[in-house]
Structures are given as C-alpha cells and as structure tokens.
C-alpha cells in the first residue's frame, strides 16, 4: 500500500514547546514511514511506537499507529516484549537521554546485548525537560541547572559509546533539523535487523537552549560536523576540503591539498565492519578538536534476538514428542490406579 505522511499523523494536538527540536524529529518520522512501508512492505497497522516518560515520550500520541506510552525508563523492556510476542511488527521507540540512559540504562544496554530488532530514537537534549530543568546523564560537566546550582560535577555519557560497549549493531547520529538525513537514517534503521539506536541531538528551547549550537548552527555546521556514509571517504567542510586520517591510534583532521594530502589518503567509512575500534573513534569525536560525526556510524549484520527465539521454538517443536497439553501431562513417570 502507498502511504503519505498524512497517514501517520494522529489527530492529537502536539503539545511540545514552540521551537522544541522534537517537532522536527516527528516531522522526520512521518516522512520516513511511507518510505519504510514501500521498501520493507509494511502496512501502517504493523507499526508500534513505544515510549517511556519525558517530553519526547509523548511521541506515540502524535502517531496514527499502535502506540504505548509506558513508564519512566521501561520503554526498551516494553518494546522487547512487543517484538518477541509478534516479530511481524515494526517496533519504534521514542526515548530521551534521562529515560534511556539514567532510569532505563539497564534495559538499554541489555536490549543491545540481545540485539532485539527494535528502532530506538534517542532524543538527546542533555537535560530533564518535563521535570523543568535538571541535569541529565548527557549534560556537560559544569552545567548549572536547578539540581546543580554550582555546576554539575558529573561526567556525561556519550550514548554511542554505550552502544558500542554493549556490542550494539547499529548506531546513527543526527541533528533535529536535518530532516533529510534523519529520514535516511530511519529507513536504514528499519532495514537493519537488530537494535538500531538513532541519537537525535535535539534542542530544548526552555531549559538547555543552544546546547548543540556550537556545531549545529547553520553557518558553521558543515565545518564542524561530518556526515558519514558507508563506502565514502570521510570528507567534510563547506569547501569539501577537510578529511579524516588515522594518526597512530587517533583520528586526525587534515586539509586536502595541504602537506601533500590527496583524497586517496582520506579514510573510507566502513559502517559494516564488526571492529569496534574505528567506530569508537568516530563516535567519540567532539568539537572543537574534531567535527561531530553524523549519519550511520555502525550498521553490522547479526541475527536478531526475536529471530533466534522463534527459530528455537520451531526447532524444539519439530523434535519434541510433546505437541499438546495432554502429551505434557502424561509425559515422564506416571502410574495408574485401577
């Protein structure tokens, strides 16, 4: 069936603050879904959007699909249950940096370890918005918030590093306003078998305005970010003249045409390698030393959890003598009283 973005919009009034980055992510999702349907043969009724608690977790109400707005931190566990129960469904999860990485951190890493086929959109605004402005596990060191009035003394997580540490098979990063890139990422995530984590760097206009601005601001974005594409050289910059090379165990930014560097010297992105090393270097790149990596950084093929669950059920069913309850009740040692 052919869908348009209108098919995926619900009739509910969207209640995010004007200017919130979540609006752009929602716009990206409703644009990506028709393409997901076309490429993967899904129908609209096969989509389930699951969320936890937080601003971004209102997401399911704004989608005209099946949806579950659950409790704080548990979206990943709920999604896991939905997908194992019915692998025919396309399961999407909207979660924030607090929801996924603080209260829900345990479920998050274990979903990755199992590689359950769910698509996690991680809205990272580096702040607790719904509770009105406390620091989150991704807030920058030193940030002044209501619960860190003298500056936060906690080191932030880099979500991509958690994904890699748990041997996640898919990680992508984008900016709220990069609608086209977001859609591409979402379609690739949908195609990926296993847990896909899409970190969306979103802006909270009220409590953490401009947190990503140093590299996301339009006029500097091309120089301070790099969009990675599998099989393509890691080139960036307004003039497409900067690139990444390996310098010992580190990445280095070079300028093409300077010091004898040519395009051939630039690293080519391999999202499909299982080797975590280079993906880790890319995930870790921070401005100003490096451009911030966007796009699909890692996309590795591996069997998904629910596939293994169902295969095992099928295999045991084929071999077992116990095919129904009566068989089970009479299995093993029994005796008859006349």
């Amino acid at each position, binding site marked *: 069936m052919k869908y348009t973005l209108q098919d995926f919009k*619900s009739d509910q009034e969207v209640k995010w603050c004007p200017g919130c980055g979540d609006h752009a992510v929602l716009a990206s999702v409703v644009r990506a879904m028709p393409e997901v349907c076309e490429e993967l043969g899904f129908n609209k009724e096969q989509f389930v959007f699951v969320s936890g608690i937080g601003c971004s977790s209102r997401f399911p109400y704004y989608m005209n699909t099946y949806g579950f707005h659950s409790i704080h931190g548990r979206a990943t566990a709920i999604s896991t249950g939905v997908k194992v*129960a019915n692998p025919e469904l396309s399961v999407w999860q909207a979660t924030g940096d607090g929801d996924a990485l603080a209260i829900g951190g345990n479920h998050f890493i274990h979903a990755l370890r199992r590689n359950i086929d769910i698509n996690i959109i991680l809205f990272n605004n580096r702040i607790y918005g719904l509770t009105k402005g406390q620091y989150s596990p991704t807030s920058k060191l030193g940030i002044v918030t209501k619960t860190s009035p003298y500056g936060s003394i906690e080191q932030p997580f880099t979500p991509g590093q958690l994904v890699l540490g748990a041997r996640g098979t898919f990680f992508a990063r984008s900016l709220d306003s990069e609608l086209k890139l977001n859609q591409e990422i979402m379609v690739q995530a949908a195609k990926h078998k296993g847990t896909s984590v899409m970190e969306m760097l979103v802006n909270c206009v009220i409590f953490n305005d401009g947190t990503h601005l140093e590299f996301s601001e339009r006029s500097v974005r091309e120089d301070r970010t790099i969009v990675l594409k599998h099989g393509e050289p890691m080139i960036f910059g307004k003039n497409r003249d900067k690139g990444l090379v390996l310098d010992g165990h580190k990445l280095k930014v070079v300028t093409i045409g300077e010091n004898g560097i040519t395009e051939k010297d630039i690293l080519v992105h391999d999202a499909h390698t299982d080797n975590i090393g280079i993906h880790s270097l890319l995930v870790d790149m921070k401005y100003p030393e490096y451009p911030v990596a966007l796009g699909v950084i890692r996309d590795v093929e591996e069997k998904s959890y629910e596939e293994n669950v169902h295969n095992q059920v099928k295999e045991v069913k084929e071999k077992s003598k116990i095919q129904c309850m009566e068989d089970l009740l009479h299995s093993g040692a029994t005796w008859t009283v006349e």
Partner: protein
Amino acid sequence: MEHKIIDTQEVVIRFTGDSGDGMQLTGTLFADASALYGNEISTFPDYPAEIRAPQGTVSGVSGFQVHIGATEVKTPGDYCDVLVAMNPAALKANAKWAKPGASIIIDTDSFDEKGIEKAGFTTNDPIAEMKLEDYHILAAPITSLTKESLKDSGLDNKAIIRSKNMFVLGMCYFMFNRPLHFTEEYLEKKFAKKPNLIAPNKKVLNDGYNYAHNIHAIPNTYRIEPAKQEPGVYRNINGNQATAWGLLAASEKSGRPLFCGSYPITPATVILEELAIHKSLGAKTVQCEDEISGICTAIGAAYAGNMAVTTTSGPGLSLKSEALGLAMITELPLVIVDVQRSGPSTGIPTKTEQTDLNQALYGRNGECPIMVMAARTPSHCFHSAFYAAKYAMEHMMPVILLTEGFIGNGSEPWKIPSMHDYPAINPPIIDKCEGKFKPFERDLEKYARSWALPGTPGLEHRVGGLEKNPAGAVSSDPLVHEQMVAARAEKVARVANYIPDLEIIGNQSGDVLLVGWGGTYGHLYTATKQLLADGANVGFAHFDYINPLPKNTAEVFAKFKKIIVCELNSGQFVDYLRAKHPEFKFAQLNKVQGQPFIVQEIVEAVKAL
C-alpha cells in the same frame, strides 16, 4: 532374629545432611518411589540459602521431609518417625523434629571428633548430649561401607563418597519395604550419558538395602499399603512445575501464545526454568535483566496479543509495583506469580511464609485494586494458574497469583486431569469495529475492554500510564478520572460473579470456623479432621480467592459462633477480613517463623478459643 513386617497407615521420614550430601535428591527419590508404589505422599524441602555453606556446620544442613500414607496425606507431617542424619550437624539441627522413640540413622564415620566439634557439641557424645538415648539409634559406618562397596568400581574417591546417599536410601527402602526398581530406572535415565555411573549407583543402593537386612539391627520393617485412590492416571508434581503447566494449559485453551518475562529468584525460578523447557508448546521465555524488565516485557507482549506472565518472589514483586500499576491502568491481561518467601527484604529466602498478601493487595501508587488469588497445594497450583490466566484474559486485567515456597517446592501425587475438564478461554479480541475504535469502552457485564492487537487494520490506538477517557484520549478531567478509577475497580469487583462460592469442609455450621488461605490448606484440613474426630463442632473454609472475596463469604461466616483465621504472617488476611466484614469478630492464629504450621498447634489454638 525373626524379622517382622508391620502394617502401618503412615510414616514420616526426614533426610538430613550437609548441603552437599544430596539429601534433596534422596528425599525426592524416596517420595517418587512411594508415589509410584501407590502411596499418598507430601514432601517438604527445608534447605539453607547457601549452595555450599561451611561443611559440617549447622547452618549448612539441608533437609527433605517425606510423609507417606496408606490413607489421606495432606501435609508433609509435623514430626518424623525416621530421621536420617548424615553428620552431627544434621542431628543437632533436626533431632527436635523426631517423634519420641523415633528411629535415627546416623553415619558414624562423620561422628568423629572434628565433625562433632564443628556441629557445636560440647561433649564427645552427641546422643547423650541431646538426650536421645531412648531413641532407636541405627549407627552405621555409611561412608566406609560405601567405599567398600565401590572399591572396584573404577570411580575416584570423591565420586564414591558422593554415592553414600544411595546407600542410606537403600537402607530406608529395606525399612519400609519399598521396591528398588523405580529408583534403578531413574538412575538409568539420569546417567544415560554417563553409563559408567549407572552400575555403581545401583550397587550402592542394593548394598545399602542388603546391609540393613543383614545387620539385624532393624527388628521390624514397615509396610505402607498403597492408598485407596480414585481411579485414574497419576503423576508426582511440585507446585512450581504445576504453576508452569497451568499457564501452558491456559495458553492452549485460549489460543494465545505464552510469553514469560522473568528474572531468576528463589523460590520461584523453577517456573521460568520449566516454561523454558516447553518451547514445543509455543512458550517463549525471556530471562530478563531485572524484575522490572520481567514485568515490562510481559506487558509489551500482552499489548501485542500474547498470554503474558511474569514470575517472582516477594522482593521481585516490590520491584514490579510501578509496572503493575501500568498493566492495571492500560487494562492488559497479565499473570503475576509470587512464590512467597520469608521477608522483609531478602529475609530468609529459602523459607516459606504468607507475608506478601498486603503487598499483593495494596502495594501500588494510586487507586489500583488487582485481583488476588492463592493456591492451596502443589498440584492445586495447576488449577490456580490456569484460572488466573483465564480471569486475566477474559476480564482484561492483571491477576496476582500467590503461592508459597512450601507448596512451590513441595510435591504430591496428582491425578492427571483431562484438558476436556477445563473450560475454553475466550479473550475479548476484536478485529474490526464500527466508527473510530475506543480502546476503553467496556462491555456492560464484566466491564472488560476489548483487546485490539497491533497488526489489525483500522484499530490503531494508544495506551499508556496517563489517565485516559473511554475514547482513549489523554485526559486530566477530574470527573473522567473519578469515573475511570471507579470503572476499573468495578471490573475487579465484578469478578465475584464468576468465581466459585466458598465451601465449608467438616460441619456446615457450628462452634468454630477455621479460616485459611494459600498453602496452609493441608495443615488446616488435617487439624479440622482431627478436631472433628475429637468431637469438636468445627468447620473449615479456605479462600482461594482473596480479591474479590467469594460472594457467599458473609453467609459462611454467619453459620459459626466463632471464627479463627490462621495464617503464616502477623495477621494480614484477618485484618483484610475485618475491614471487609466488620460485622464479624475474628480470632487469629499467626506464625512468622519461616516454617509451616504444625497441625497440633492449630488444634490447640482452636480448643483454647
């Protein structure tokens, strides 16, 4: 000496030893052989939390009590006729459970100076120190005899010593005229992949039997004839296994695939293990990263249309509280099994108690009534789990099933039911509707909402923890909230129209009504029979359904002059009854020792009223 066989109605044997001595297996094998022989049986494993507590110490003693009878057996027995004590610590910890004059089998090899000292005896004569001279002590060098028996077996010393439990089992088989072949067949199956262990184990078993025969220290042996049981095919089953099977049966009857999300916890783990085996019946099990994930994966699976289950014990239920509220407000079917253990906190994890009732009834934020059921006996767990799932699915709500370590680990013979005896389960699944689907519209009888499964075109809807109006839109309207709270409560209350009436065992009216719930059934039943035999005018009512209560509850209470509520906590059910039925006066009998009741203490409490 002429050896005499004495017919007896019942006997209780308690196998005790170091937690590495294999007493749980020995007891189980004795119980299984007796069940296969046709006796009524009831068992009670009593083991420490440590897998291997310090060897030879009292804290490391593991016990397994078996009650076998030629007539009705409803409890594992209060005190034992035969105590097997494989070391001094076992004797020290368990002599108090031996009836006056009971036979006590000890392994003299372990009663050396070191063993006696480790057990904490102050003299070198434990028998005298514990004043057991009047008991029939069967002192046998079990370890050395086992070594002698297996000296040519080719097994190493460690493996040989490990088989000493088979020697003592053989001795017990002689004492009670049990056939050996059931256990021999078991050994053949168990060691099918290690055939070199079959012959040695059989040999030790037989040598133990022959030794007991030859020493002439056992003047009389006992015969417990097969019990007169209802005709049918029987098997032995423990409560956790029965719970798992009841859930599988409900899955088959409802056509909904079973999903279990759980985290291992004593004493509930066996349910998850058992479900994990039966993939051929379509059961999917996810061993989750924590208790919260256990219930949340199950809630997700329920939303997607599976028969969802999570299994746990007290501390795990605490962790699941918030998600239970989510299951309740989203009105999704879910079975939560709590195999209660001694608390609070970690408490005494391997000991039994009924102390989670308040938690099951009230342990959530907001107005959150949930249906609560309890199982009576090991085999009754099958029935209870089946009905918990039936009510959950047909009424679209979470149901808590309380069992206990005592019945979860305990086993009994079970007349195998036919699946034809169990009703169909018809969850209110819909595949289309007129107009826009309203997820929280309910049917007027049960007050259940419809179950619209993701994947069904046209029924897309959202559920969640936020209060909603019947159409499914988020609402914080004060009156809508109050209506929804009332409707959800009414749905639980209306289950009373679907559950069976409370029955009275014994006299249908009279002086005293004994009241219980859950795993105390066997002890209360036996106490009631004893009181009736003593001429007391008593009845007994046991609650399988706690929230809601059976509709005839007040009617039953009104038939007796006095009511005594007996439970293994400080009075949680009695307080609940006082709140629900303030028109009656309730006496209470409570025990919070991590141990089941003793029949005699119930009898005495009733007589003292």
